[in-house]
């Protein structure tokens, strides 16, 4: 009996080995052929052999599905180039890998990097500015959304091709507004208005307002007051050396959140996108800040009427607008020229209004080419979801300034972490100015270290 079981186990393991051994040799064969393809296209490239390039991205979940379709369509649309879209984990996880192959011939032709990695990428020396190709070909980029280009243009050069772009919006529960006696068509616009509305909306089960504990939203609320994040014009006229987000505008934001936290009208749902979105659909919070990319999913998921509004701003200032978020596509230096060419062709393909329409509809990210909004399928969708228009209006009405172009610092990921920490401490009762000052000090320290190490 005992022996029987033992034998069974051995048999199971043995069969695994056999299975493994068979598949092993098979996949190795495939492996070598595929690597041959990518490596050999330098020399004996014939007309029939397409040029293959790698495209590293960080899109998971539904966005990955849409992206894979677009890439497949590109590969089908012509036979000169072939793009291999490869998932590399989150933005944070893909950067170390890029760093290890950056500047060599093994680097992927295109890499998707989040917006706050912009400064790092420019300094890294791994990349070829997109501007080179724009100049060479006199490619017309004026067709693209100006407010998105502003972010990725540094010293008058467009470094990377904008790709998935989103901005923050305030999403609210229209039914809850009605129940609280508020006008569901007129969302509160300023900090004080939000504070007052939150008081009215608050019930036993529902918080008035919430915001994901994420540095991005803080940056936005500062920028919409015209405030800077770091000195030297947000690091855009010279390398930033000191953070200034702990000034008046930053304090406004922290006081705004603190007020609601003290009132008991603020709901804290942590650092996870999914948690706060689920809280909204489960009617645990009436208003919250989300990415414009999440709007469509939210309208579908929520069992009530969903309103979308501009993000709030401080009462005594004028609304300046929003900074673009998301990621852009970078072209590698040091790879074969024809690989760069292929990458450039693919990037141009991505800009076409049909592809942008598909991307916009599939993911909720903005179309970087506004012509996409004129495509019939987009018009249909917008008729169904009029809330989409609010997100685009907010972006297009943004006034160009150093504040709304966003900050450029190489240690942005660390700084965001410090802001998260400061927000969490704020919610635990820490003094707003103190929490902000500490975050600023840590950010300054990180900038200083980075400066020292990279001289």
């Amino acid at each position: 009996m005992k022996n029987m079981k033992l034998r069974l186990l051995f048999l199971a393991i043995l069969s695994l080995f056999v299975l493994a051994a068979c598949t092993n040799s098979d996949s190795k064969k495939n492996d070598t052929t595929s690597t041959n393809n990518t490596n050999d296209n330098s020399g004996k490239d014939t007309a029939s052999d397409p040029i293959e390039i790698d495209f590293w991205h960080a899109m998971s979940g539904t966005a990955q599905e849409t992206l894979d379709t677009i890439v497949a369509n590109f590969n089908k649309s012509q036979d000169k180039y072939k793009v291999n879209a490869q998932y590399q984990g989150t933005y944070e996880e893909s950067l170390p890998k890029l760093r290890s192959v950056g500047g060599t011939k093994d680097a992927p032709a295109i890499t998707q990097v989040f917006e706050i990695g912009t400064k790092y990428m420019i300094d890294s020396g791994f990349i070829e500015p997109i501007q080179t190709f724009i100049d060479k070909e006199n490619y017309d980029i004026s067709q693209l959304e100006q407010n998105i280009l502003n972010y990725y243009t540094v010293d008058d050069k467009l470094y990377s091709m904008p790709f998935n772009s989103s901005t923050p919006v305030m999403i609210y529960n229209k039914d809850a507004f009605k129940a609280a006696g508020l006008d569901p068509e007129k969302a509160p616009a300023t900090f004080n208005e939000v504070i007052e509305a939150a008081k009215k909306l608050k019930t036993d089960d529902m918080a008035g307002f919430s915001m994901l504990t994420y540095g991005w939203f803080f940056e936005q609320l500062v920028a919409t007051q015209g405030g800077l994040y770091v000195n030297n014009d947000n690091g855009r006229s010279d390398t930033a050396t000191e953070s200034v987000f702990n000034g008046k505008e930053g304090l406004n934001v922290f006081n705004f959140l603190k007020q609601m936290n003290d009132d008991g009208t603020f709901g804290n749902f942590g650092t996870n996108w999914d948690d706060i979105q689920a809280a909204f659909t489960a009617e645990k919070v009436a208003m919250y800040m989300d990415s414009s990319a999440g709007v469509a999913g939210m309208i579908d998921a929520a069992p009530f009427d969903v309103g979308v509004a501009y993000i709030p701003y401080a009462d005594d200032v004028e609304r300046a607008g929003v900074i673009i978020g998301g990621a852009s596509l970078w072209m590698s230096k040091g790879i074969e020229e024809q690989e760069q060419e292929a990458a450039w062709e693919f990037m141009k393909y991505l800009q076409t209004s049909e592809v942008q329409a598909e991307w916009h509809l599939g993911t909720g990210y903005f179309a970087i080419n506004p012509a996409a909004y004129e495509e019939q399928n987009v018009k249909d969708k917008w008729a169904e979801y009029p809330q989409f228009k609010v997100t685009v209006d907010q972006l297009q009405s943004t006034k160009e300034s150093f504040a709304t172009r966003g900050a450029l610092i190489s240690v942005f990921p660390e700084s965001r972490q410090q802001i998260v920490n400061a927000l969490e401490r704020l919610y635990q009762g820490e003094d707003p100015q103190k929490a902000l000052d500490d975050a600023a000090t840590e950010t300054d320290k990180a900038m200083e270290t980075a400066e020292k190490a990279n001289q």
Partner: protein
Amino acid sequence: MKKTYLHRVSLYLLLTFCALLLFFPIIYAFFISFMTNTEVMSGKLLPQTFDLSNYYKVFERLPLVTFLINSFIVSCTVMLGQLIVSSLAAYAFVFIPFKGRDLLFFIFVSTMMIPWEATMIPNFFIIQKLDWLNTYQGLSLPFFALAFGTFLLRQHFKTIPYELYEASRVVGLSRFAFFWRIVLPMSKTSLVTLGAYGFLTTWNMYLWPLLITTNDSVRTVQIGLKQLQSQELGTDWGVVMAGVVVVIIPTLLLLFIGQKQLQKGLSQGAIK
């Protein structure tokens, strides 16, 4: 030792209660994998129907079959490698008296205390220099030498009487023949245990495979789990849980088949 009826019933009740408590998260994941999104959002415990669409989606979205095969290959390779390397080392530690044996053994065991994450960065560069990114050897070779394995097998080999070794030398059996024909067959349980342990831990590895693969050709299933979760958009929990179920079924099965062996062998490593 006859137990009273009451005693037996209360034991069964306690056992069932603990089993339910412990197994609940797994059952829960299993149920959610059959739910539609609205059902998930309303916080139901049981799905209305056993709808397979989440499973279709998961296999459609990711090359899960490739991932599963890769996981099998890597896990089996590491398992074999660990068995060979560890048993050779353990054999030397037990049956060959050489100078500095205890010191060397201590150094071996002390490597158990080095957190893998602490050496991950340099290791990554080593693999890259060897040009082993995206290869099975890059995924598996760094794990062949396992201090825990050497330790476990040494404890077991020690139970084999040294006289047996001397006798075999007198009969003219070579050192390697003794290892191969006598020591290994006598340590079957420990070997199976170590094998299963190596298989499971490798199957469950996550950060390393993510770091050293840049395309799907050799990726393992754990990375697939990560790819199912959206970042800026809402997560489709039903599909994610379907992925979880697909990923844990092979290891659970292995565990169910080999549980008894595993437990026997592991315990032998624990006693001196």
